[in-house]
């Protein structure tokens, strides 16, 4: 009897903790895999505000190899690490940034979207989002190398949901690792971008 009650309790706890809500676009039909509720943060940052941002070079969807240093002295840079293609929150986040281009332009910033997925996967996934104005980079091989450099590679091999704002001098001005299960609010990023004005 006690065993049965324990089983029921475990089942109820699992039911209570699963099933987070996502504002999922119909653009993806039934092609989104839900990993369920995950540990909010599962890594420790290797960088902090005020540090020089570690340089990296990654292949992009357009075929170019893009380095962080390409933008030094020219553009502020926002790095948006999202955990994985074809998952609920990630599939919404970049289409929002795609619409919100004006906030990046107004603050002389480029956005670099990064995941650990390979290029063919990123190609198929981002095609559902429309024409993205920003480069999408693949941190697939060596697997999660750049994510690991910044300290946002989770033990499962995907990245955190992290944002870094890097100024034209290559200095990190904002670094946030949010709850992987939630989309970061746009207003907070815009506030940080606006702080770059005059720097």
């Amino acid at each position, binding site marked *: 009897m006690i065993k049965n009650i324990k089983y029921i309790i475990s089942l109820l706890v699992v039911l209570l903790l699963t099933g987070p809500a996502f504002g999922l676009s119909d*653009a993806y039909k039934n092609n989104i895999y839900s990993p369920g509720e995950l540990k909010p943060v599962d890594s420790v940052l290797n960088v902090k505000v005020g540090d020089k941002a570690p340089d990296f070079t990654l292949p992009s969807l357009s075929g170019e190899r893009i380095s962080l240093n390409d933008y030094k002295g020219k553009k502020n840079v926002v790095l948006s690490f999202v955990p994985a293609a074809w998952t609920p929150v990630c599939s919404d986040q970049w*289409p929002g940034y795609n619409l919100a281009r004006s906030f990046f332009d107004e603050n002389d910033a480029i956005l670099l979207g990064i995941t650990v997925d390979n290029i063919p996967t990123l190609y198929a996934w981002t095609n559902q989002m429309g024409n993205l104005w920003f480069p999408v980079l693949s941190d697939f091989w060596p697997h999660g190398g750049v994510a690991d450099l910044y300290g946002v590679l989770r033990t499962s091999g995907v990245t955190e949901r992290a944002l870094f704002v890097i100024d034209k001098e290559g200095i990190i001005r904002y670094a946030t690792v949010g709850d992987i299960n939630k989309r970061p609010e*746009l207003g907070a990023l815009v506030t940080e971008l606006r702080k770059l004005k005059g720097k």
Partner: protein
Amino acid sequence: MKKVLTGFAASLLVIMAAFSSFGQSAPPSVGGTLPKISLPVPQDEAYRQYLGLKGGGTFLVPQIKANVVIVQIFSMYCPHCQRDAPVANEFFSKLSADSKLKDTVKLIGIGAGNSDFEIDFFRKQYGIKFPLFSDGEFLIHKSIGEVRTPYFIAIKINKNGTHKVVYSKLGGINDPDEFLKIVRGFSGL
């Protein structure tokens, strides 16, 4: 021990029941009713007038002064909603220009998981004229079965204040004239 575990299980069941009464597993069905969706009375006087609301505080969707209320569930982050936004605007213009429908059919949008900042940005980006409301924590979205977006629900409000869902469908407006015909159909006008 058995008593403690039974008590704990019973408490969990109560919590589950509370959650399930708030979160609905399926979208509102035609012929049924809308869950209680409480929204803040807009600060903008033009929106208050459009919705026939006075003062501050909150209101429920069936309290809007109309025979039919169309609720658009969208997200600033949803590519289909972005593509459908100009179409929804065109539909609203046609609705507002129709002498029979303009005072009897009202349109509002609810941004699932969108903050006030995000709603405001979406409104400005597309020049949206009808009232939009934020649902930053997905509370409304959960109560209507976590529908994919865009999703449209329409309710018909009876004179005694009760209401009935007359339309509940996934997908954008796509064709404003066609949607207007559908609206005429379910509004009986």
